[in-house]
Structure formats: structure tokens, C-alpha cells
């Protein structure tokens, strides 16, 4: 195929558009590489050996976030494993284990690289630089964050005509004025400890080293799904106290990264290929028609 003016211009146009697209799309990738050192996120260390199941954290959470106040004297709630809900951002569960009763507080884990944030197409879910994963009202209510969360934390108000996603936000408002999350502040047993992830992991290691009989040597959330803001230590294996231990250490956004990287490639190469095929078939057709005449 010889190059005539039209084809030349087509190629020129294609290359220009391609360069612009590449420049537009690639920097994000290289930027992502530069930020290998994550900022120091704040988090909470939960020492399940200290928790007595008083549910003060539930009450404090409800009060700080204007949710219905739970009846903390009602111990029947422990009969069944509870999940967080649209009116309970945090719940305490009781587990019968080989080493007796263990109480575990559950809430959003505030992942370092959250699946819900990668899922959100309008950035209603955001990972804040302080550490919390927060939700905002520009949400469309598509609920893609829900299947994308390894801990199934985002809860959607199905019964409302103006539904919101309800989940723990690590008391982001309090954090920004230098206060600790309400649950941490109100824990009478110091089972909850607030600090940077680095400090919390150090402290968790210290407790495990100094009391090897009292803890299993694992910090849940140190590596799970790429690391989480909430960290747990326990005296029994984590699968006995309601944690999934099969989630792996890959941050969830990684699972869609390959697909997203292929997008600019497909958008450039596919049309280029199709334009080429089109040029060939067009010539063929014209020759055929010209031949008939």
C-alpha cells in the first residue's frame, strides 16, 4: 500500500491523538510508582485479650455519629454473631474459643488501599490522608463498593428513598480537631489504642514478645489485603473469632489494575487495526467495482 496524502494525514492524526492519550493516561501510572511510601495513616490497635464486652464503644460511636443509642445492658445480643448495620457502625461480638470467651469489636478496617475506594466511580468513598475511609453524598448509590469490600463493611439504606452508605469513618471530624475516635476515648479497659500504624504495629509486637503465652504471633491487618488501619491481636487463631484468614495480602485495587492498564492500549491499537483493515477492504471493493465498469 503506497502512502498518499490522505493516508499520511490519517496516520499523522492518529499519532497525534495517540500521543495526547498516552500522555494523559501514563503519568498516573508513574505517579503511582513514586508513592511507594504510603503516608503515615492513623489507626487503632484492638487488643482482644483486654476487651470485656461492655459495649461502651458501641454507645460512644452511636452518640458521636448520631445513630440510635444501643441498649448496652442487654447481653442477649451476644447470642448471635452480629454484623455492622446501617444504624450500627461498630458491633462487639462474643466468641466461645478453646481459650474461653473472647470479645471482638468489628467496624470498617480502614484499609491502606481500600477496594471500596477503587470501586467508587465518583470518589464518594475516599481514603483520607489521616487514615479514615469516608463516604460522601455525591454517591450514586450503585453499591459497587459493597461487593468490592473484603470485610463487607459498607451498608446501604435499602429502606430509604434518600439512601446513604453507612460505615465507620474513624471519627474523621474528631481526628481533624486533634481528638481520638469516640470508641477509643470511651474504652474503659484500654483495649483500643489510637496512633499511627507504625507505632501501633510496634506496640502490638512488644505485647506479643513480652507475653508470648497470651497472644498468638500474628497481627491481623498488618499484611491482610495490603494492610489495614485497624489492627488486631488475639490469644486464639483469628478464624476462631470471626475473621476471614483467606483474604491474602494483595491490596484489592490490584485485582483490577491489569484490566485498567489494558484500556488505553486497546483504545489505541484496536481502532488503528480496524482503520487498517478498513483501508484494505475499501481498496479491494473499489478495485472490484472499478473492474466491473
Amino acid at each position: 500500500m503506497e502512502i498518499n496524502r490522505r493516508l499520511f494525514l490519517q496516520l499523522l492524526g492518529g499519532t497525534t491523538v495517540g500521543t495526547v492519550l498516552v500522555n494523559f493516561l501514563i503519568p498516573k501510572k508513574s505517579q503511582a510508582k513514586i508513592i511507594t511510601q504510603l503516608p503515615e495513616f492513623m489507626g487503632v490497635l484492638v487488643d482482644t485479650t483486654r476487651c470485656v464486652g461492655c459495649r461502651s464503644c458501641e454507645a460512644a460511636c452511636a452518640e458521636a455519629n448520631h445513630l440510635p443509642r444501643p441498649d448496652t445492658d442487654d447481653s442477649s445480643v451476644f447470642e448471635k454473631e452480629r454484623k455492622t448495620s446501617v444504624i450500627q457502625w461498630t458491633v462487639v461480638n462474643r466468641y466461645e474459643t478453646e481459650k474461653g470467651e473472647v470479645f471482638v469489636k468489628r467496624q470498617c478496617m480502614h484499609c491502606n488501599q481500600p477496594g471500596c475506594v477503587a470501586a467508587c466511580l465518583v470518589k464518594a468513598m475516599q481514603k483520607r490522608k489521616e487514615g479514615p475511609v469516608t463516604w460522601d453524598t455525591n454517591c450514586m448509590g450503585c453499591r459497587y463498593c459493597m461487593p468490592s469490600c473484603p470485610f463487607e463493611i459498607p451498608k446501604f439504606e435499602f429502606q430509604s428513598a434518600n439512601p446513604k452508605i453507612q460505615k465507620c469513618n474513624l471519627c474523621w471530624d474528631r481526628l481533624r480537631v486533634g481528638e481520638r475516635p469516640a470508641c477509643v476515648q470511651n474504652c474503659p479497659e484500654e483495649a483500643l489504642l489510637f496512633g499511627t500504624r507504625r507505632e501501633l504495629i510496634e506496640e502490638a509486637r512488644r505485647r506479643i514478645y513480652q507475653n508470648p503465652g497470651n497472644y498468638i504471633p500474628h497481627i491481623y491487618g498488618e499484611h491482610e489485603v495490603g494492610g489495614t488501619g485497624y489492627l488486631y491481636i488475639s490469644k486464639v487463631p483469628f478464624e476462631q473469632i470471626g475473621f476471614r484468614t483467606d483474604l491474602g495480602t494483595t491490596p484489592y485495587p490490584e485485582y483490577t489494575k491489569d484490566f485498567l492498564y489494558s484500556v488505553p492500549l486497546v483504545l489505541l491499537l484496536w481502532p488503528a487495526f480496524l482503520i487498517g483493515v478498513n483501508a484494505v477492504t475499501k481498496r479491494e471493493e473499489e478495485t472490484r467495482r472499478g473492474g466491473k465498469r
Partner: protein
Amino acid sequence: MSEMTAHGEMKNLKELFVFIRNEMKPKGKVFTPFNIISFPIILLGAVLVLIRLAKGLGSVTNLSQEFPWGIWIGFDVMVGVAFAGGAYILTFVVYILRSEKYHPLVRATVLNGFLAYVFYAGAIFLDLGRWWNIVNPILGNKFGVNSVLFLVSWHFLLYMISLFIEFSPAVAEWLGLRRIRKIVGSLTIGAVIFGIALSTLHQSGLGALFLMAKDKIHPLWYTEFIPVLFFLSSIFAGLSMVIFEGTISHRVFRQQIDQEHHDSFNRILIGLGKACAGALFVYFFMKILILIHGKQWPLLATPMGTWFLIELIGLVLLPCILFLHGVRYQNLTVIKMAAILSMLGIIINRLNYSIIAYKWYIPLSERYIPSWMEIVITLSIIFTEVWVFRWVVNRMPVIRESPEWVMEEKTVQESMTVRKEVPQWKISTM
């Protein structure tokens, strides 16, 4: 056809309005069995939609925190978009490969694809909890560019525009707008190329949505190749739909088709069956490769494994063999049966990802089963789409031939291009 389009040119705007107003009136019989069944369902669906908008998703759906996505996503969007895949494949064959054989089907398929996107992807609107924010991914100031759904939503919008451009010559011919017909006709190739690229990405993108549900989808179905599988399956899903829908349209709109096209229709079906068999085989092969590499053999002995095999053998391999058989022995009944089977396979496959193999570990009593209201709304969406399709086909040159003035202009254009080509050819040989 009306007088005005017969001689082709609308004289002024007023005439155009009068023409459109007349075309709005129903044509043909009103009390057909289809109308008698579908009309009450559409009405009921409309009432349910109002309830849903007023009282929230929980008032009409059985969705829960465990199962945030129901049949409006798993069936309407996932299956509807896969079935609409026929449009990008047929436009590829007709406009890029320039195969004249499939030309008679291309407009109906593009129209069907366009309406499928409008109605089934439009079902997203009902499913969005905060639907008034639907413009946010397009017009907002916070773009979640790292989200697969962001890509899918943009692609839906752009692809709908491409499909509309591809279909717009039919609209122009209906209205007798010669100049506009010429302009939009020249955009077709661009729209087709753009549309194919978009389709590749959003068909696979719908699969990529499930990549982050790694811990929730049964390991026999979860693979990093979900996007590839979704793309491959959209090929035979789309073509099977063309066979299915084409067969029905062919019967319903019989009076619009001339004898020549009646005869070519069977050859077209056999050609489509051949393509389906090929696509199904590639898909089957890919599934087997993934199964072998995944080393999930023991899981095949579980109940979910049986379900997996039913899908793989009964709804992928079997239709593949049936298509081959039908093509080999020129048996149209077998080809149509195979098309229905492979469509069923797509429905099961998409429902597996979104509902059945999704959180397979949850006992049946706590699982999501669609409410009758979700089903009625889905049915009324399908029926409304069929109504609009019928309305358009009865008015615009979709199945019937284009008006004569189009043909005349085409011949004039063609002779011009040939004349233009001659000197160029001379120069290049010098």
C-alpha cells in the same frame, strides 16, 4: 409509506411536524395477543417504578446487605448488554470487512443494540439508590478514574451515541432529510470503529467489575480472566440474539421483506451459526484452560461443581456442537435451538457471577431470590423495548429497503468515487 418520504424532500419545518404527528399514531391492529399481555404488565411495572422511587429500593426488591446486586444488575444490565453485542460484531462484519451478505440484518441489529443499551443499561437508573446523582461520573468534578465502573459508565454513554449515529441514516430516510442523511451516513465508519473499541472494553469491563469480589465468587468461576471470558461470550451471545431476534422479526414483519431477502435469510442464519460455533469453541477452550490452570479439580465433585459442569457442558459445549451440526446439515431448526441454548447459557453465566455463585457459602434461606415486583419491572422494561422496536420498524427503513432516493444518490456517489480513483491509480503506477 407516506407520500412525502416517497419523493424524498421535506419542504419546511411545519410539514415535518405534521408528518411526525401522523407517524405517532398506532399502525396495525391494537388488540393483538402480545399487546393484551404486555400492556397491563407495563402499566403495573410503571406503578411499581413509582413506588420504588418514592420509598426506596427495599420497597420493591429483595436486595439485602449480603446481596447488594439483584436481577436488575445481574440480568437486565449484564445479560442485556451481552445480548446487545450483536451490534458491534455485525457492524464489524458489514462495514469493516464489507461483507454484503449480512447487510440486510445490520440495521435491525444496530437498532436492537441501541434500544437494549437505552432500556437495559437504563435499568441502572432504577437500581441506583441515589439516581439523581447519575450525571456525576460524566459531569461531576470528582472522577473515580481508577474505577472499572467509571470506565463502563463512560463507555455506555459513548457507545449509545455511536449506535445512534450508526442508526441515524434510517431516521433521516424516514424523515426524508437528504442533506442530513448524507452527513450522518459519512460518519458511519468512524462510529463503527469507535463503537467496536468501546464494546470490547465495556463488555469485558462488566466482567472486570467482579474482579474485586475475589473472596465472594466461587473459585470455579473466579479467575483473573473474567474480563476475557465476558468479552468472548458476548460474541456468541450477541450473534445468538441476532439469530433469535432475526427469526422473530422475519416472521412478524414478513410483509416488509421482498422475496430476494427472504431467500438470502437462511444463508445468513447458517453463516451466523458458523460464527457462533467458532466463538463458543474458543470460549469453551478458554474455560477448560482456566480450569486446568486453576487446579480446582476437587471442587468439581461438589454441588457447585455439578452446576459448573451443567453450564460448561450443557450450555456451552452442547450448543457449540449443535451449531456445527446445523451448519453441516444446513438444518435451521437445530441452529435456532442452539441459539436459544447458548442464550440460556449466557443468562445462567451472568447470574452465576452476580447472584448464584456469588457468596455460594450462604445457605439458601438467607440467599437473594428476586421479588415478583423486580420480575414485573424487568418484564415491563423488555416489553417497552419491544414496543419501541416495533414502532420504529413499522415506520423507518429498518427491515424494509431504503427509499429510492437513497439508492439513486448512492449510485451517483459511487460513480464519482470511481472517477476520482482513476487518476490516482495512474499516478501511482507511473
